[in-house]
């Protein structure tokens, strides 16, 4: 009875759902040996060759070259020479051959010797592969629900079983006996010594997920002592057993994307970072918000398993890269920097922003508030709105705020002119337009010139605070960090959580003295902590 073995469309990798027959290496009647190439299959990503890991005679090639079939679909039949054609016909007529993960055993992915592990990562997909036609046919056969479930799972055609239950109904024992007598139905791959060939885990007192996990790992649940309610086997029991047996960590999610808390998930969604590209460092392998930010900062999404070794490739500089290098080297060398850091309470800004953005059409960022507040502070302390030249101090009578925008391959600093004279909404619109043009590399020289002061904001990346290099000929740049929640003691001694943002002003000491810079920060803080004034 075990002589007929189906060959099915294999599943290579997580995302393969179907494959196209590209080339048969074998013909009907040919004798297979282990390792022999059977068929080339083209997937969305690769063309790969399926090798045999069983011996027998190729009796039928079901799928012609060029045909695209779902994973698990029957593509060929292998059987002993002794099996008659009639038997094979009967087999094909009476049954769509087994297509569960367990029955994919005769095939293996030659270039991915971790194929069983990959199967484990998507058990449900493997189960879905069970033939709906079979399930429908089985529906018509008198059988207990459990028997039907097991049969569908194992690709067993119930009509081939003689039932011993009430009125000839097929029961669980019948199906299990049939499967036991038909190793072709049960020849599960053996990923580890703890594995048993025929799993009867559904009959064990275990939680649904414990059973699923055990099936994925090929663990016979009858060998486990349950610690759950009424001695039920739970996931923790299976995990313990798997660990003790040296089986791979089973969590399917973990192998695709690390677990992550809601905040990290939201940040990842906001930043457009795929969690699967995040390298988790949190407790129990969880991805933290920091990990998400790191993934964004890291090249190629942060999870290139085989990065190009350093120094092997030399990528030529772009013109922008060279310009940045030249300008900033000169600035750091020639401009005597000093740095002033201050904390600003942002609760009012956040609240006001929320109210404004709740109105139709408004979309004002925190940075827009900072730009406007900086402009007003420059008006309050005009001695910061200056440029050092050898000839004399150039003073500006309006605040042209340059905004550092990261683009691919570098950064640019388009300018919002006279930000002190423009309402928030205008600043927001201009900034959005400038940033968009920056990313599209459509900024004009006019967009980039005449800045009197720069705001560089890395808060969205979770940077707490940093020191920016002044962009000459400007004399100051404001480095803006992330707004964080921090407990602050109130005047009355109570502790209260506040939203705190650290900013660092880099000043050109040739043009600006410490006290002047400090006055600017005080003015900036006042504008941001009492932000109603920013609305005027």
């Amino acid at each position, binding site marked *: 009875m075990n002589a007929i073995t189906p060959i099915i469309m294999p599943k290579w990798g997580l995302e393969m759902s179907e494959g196209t027959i590209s080339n048969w290496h074998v013909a009907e009647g040919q004798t297979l040996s282990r390792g022999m190439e059977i068929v080339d299959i083209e997937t969305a990503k690769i063309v790969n060759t399926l090798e045999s890991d069983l011996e027998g005679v190729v009796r039928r090639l079901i799928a012609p070259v060029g045909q695209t079939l779902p994973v698990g679909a029957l593509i060929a039949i292998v059987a002993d020479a002794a099996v008659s054609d009639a038997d094979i016909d009967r087999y094909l007529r009476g049954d769509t051959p087994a297509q569960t993960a367990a029955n994919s055993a005769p095939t293996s992915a030659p270039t991915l010797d971790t194929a069983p592990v990959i199967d484990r990562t998507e058990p*449900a997909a493997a*189960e*879905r592969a069970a033939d709906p036609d079979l399930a429908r046919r089985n529906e018509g056969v008198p059988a*207990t*629900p459990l028997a039907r479930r097991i049969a569908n799972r194992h690709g067993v055609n119930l009509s081939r079983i003689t039932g011993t239950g*009430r009125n000839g*109904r097929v029961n669980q024992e019948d199906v299990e006996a049939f499967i036991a007598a038909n190793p072709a139905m049960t020849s599960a791959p053996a990923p580890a010594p703890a594995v048993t060939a025929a799993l009867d885990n559904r009959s064990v007192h275990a*939680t*649904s*997920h*414990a059973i*699923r996990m055990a099936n994925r790992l090929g663990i016979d649940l009858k060998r486990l002592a349950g610690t*759950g*309610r*009424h001695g*039920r086997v*739970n*996931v923790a029991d299976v995990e313990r057993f798997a660990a003790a047996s040296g089986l791979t960590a089973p969590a*399917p*999610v973990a192998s695709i994307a690390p*677990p*992550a*808390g*809601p905040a990290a*998930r939201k940040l990842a*969604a906001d930043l457009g970072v795929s969690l699967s590209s995040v390298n988790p460092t949190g407790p*129990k392998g*969880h991805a933290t918000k920091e990990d998400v930010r790191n993934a964004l900062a890291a090249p190629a999404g942060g999870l290139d398993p085989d990065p190009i070794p350093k120094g092997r490739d030399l990528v030529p500089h772009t013109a922008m890269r060279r310009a940045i290098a030249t300008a900033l080297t000169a600035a750091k060398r020639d401009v005597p920097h000093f740095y002033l850091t201050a904390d600003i309470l942002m609760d009012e800004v956040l609240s006001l922003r929320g109210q404004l953005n709740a109105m139709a059409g408004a979309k004002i960022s925190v940075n827009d508030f900072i730009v406007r507040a900086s402009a007003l502070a420059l008006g309050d302390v005009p001695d910061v709105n200056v440029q050092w030249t050898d000839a004399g101090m150039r003073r500006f009578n309006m605040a042209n705020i340059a905004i550092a925008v990261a683009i691919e391959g570098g950064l640019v600093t388009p300018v919002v002119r006279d930000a002190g004279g423009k309402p928030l909404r205008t600043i927001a619109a201009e900034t959005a337009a400038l940033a968009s043009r920056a990313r599209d590399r459509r900024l004009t020289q006019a967009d980039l010139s005449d800045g009197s002061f720069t705001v560089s904001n890395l808060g969205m990346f979770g940077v707490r605070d940093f020191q920016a290099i002044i962009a000459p000929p400007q004399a100051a740049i404001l480095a803006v960090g992330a707004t964080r929640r921090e407990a602050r003691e109130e005047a009355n001694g109570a502790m209260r959580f506040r939203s705190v943002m650290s900013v660092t002003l880099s000043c050109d000491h040739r043009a600006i003295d410490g006290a002047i810079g400090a006055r600017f920060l005080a003015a900036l803080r006042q504008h941001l902590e009492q932000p109603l004034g920013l609305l005027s």
Partner: protein
Amino acid sequence: MPKISMRQAINDALHLEMERDPRVIVLGEDVSGGAGGTSGEREAAGGVFGLTKGLLPRFGEDRVIDTPISESCIVGAANGAALTGLRPVAEIMFADFVGVCMDQLLNQAAKFRYMFGGKARTPLVIRMTCGGGMNAAAQHSQTIYPILTSIPGLKVVIPSNAYDAKGLLLTAIRDDDPVIFFEHKSLYMDECEVPDGDYTIPFGEAAMVREGEHVTVVALARMVPLAIGVVDKLAAEGITCDLIDPRTTSPLDEESILESVRATGRLVVVDESPPRCSVAADIAAMAAEKAFHHLKAPIIQVTAPHTPVPFARELEAAYLPSPEKIEAAIRKVLSGR
């Protein structure tokens, strides 16, 4: 296997267990009915929903006790009988009526064993019909199981189908502790395959009604068949759900729910009760507390609104969770926002 209704399954279980154990008695209003009437028909009711039909002729008046309308004394007498060697199955005609016998549940049955230092056994079942869908309005439609689930010392069983109802009722009668057995009146006619003989279903073990990978849906009582329809429909689109019927809310099978939530990362809880301090809220809180890091989206509760159950057809239909609301919730939880 024969298909029978939940009404028949419960009636079968009562027959079976009274036959098996002479200590089992049934008491309540109109459990046989007819006493003192002018027709002389002694079994004029067999329970207002017919759940206890046939018991009086078979087991006699000593064991099938028609009581006056006295809910306090029905539960109290069941308590006392349970304390002194019988295994009473009392019936409160509508769960809403526990309002008048709450003391006997809250302060007596629930407390005996603990309060008496472990010495008391109270093998007691109180059956009560609950739930909406019959336009029975505010005092005959409630699902008050959250109130009773919140009381330590009561076990609370809420079957969603005939098979579970029979197996759970047999477990309940054989249990040595007070068990509240909720029967959703809109499920009485629902049929499924039920074995003839004796079988029990342990408390605290949820049924995994459907298996899937994308969303965990937890539903109770009549919400289970509604959820099955939705889950099966979505499966055709490739959205697959673990559909879990806890079957008992006390003890609650935390393990099965948490294992599933940890696998899917998404939870929708469907319950017919109002939302505050509900079983749905309890399950959602548990998942938030114990599976927090696995959640990919906010938990969604599909419940009735925080109002009494209304009467008019249109009002009750709007009040009760519907397949549409369940489907919308599943789609929303999949959107991640």
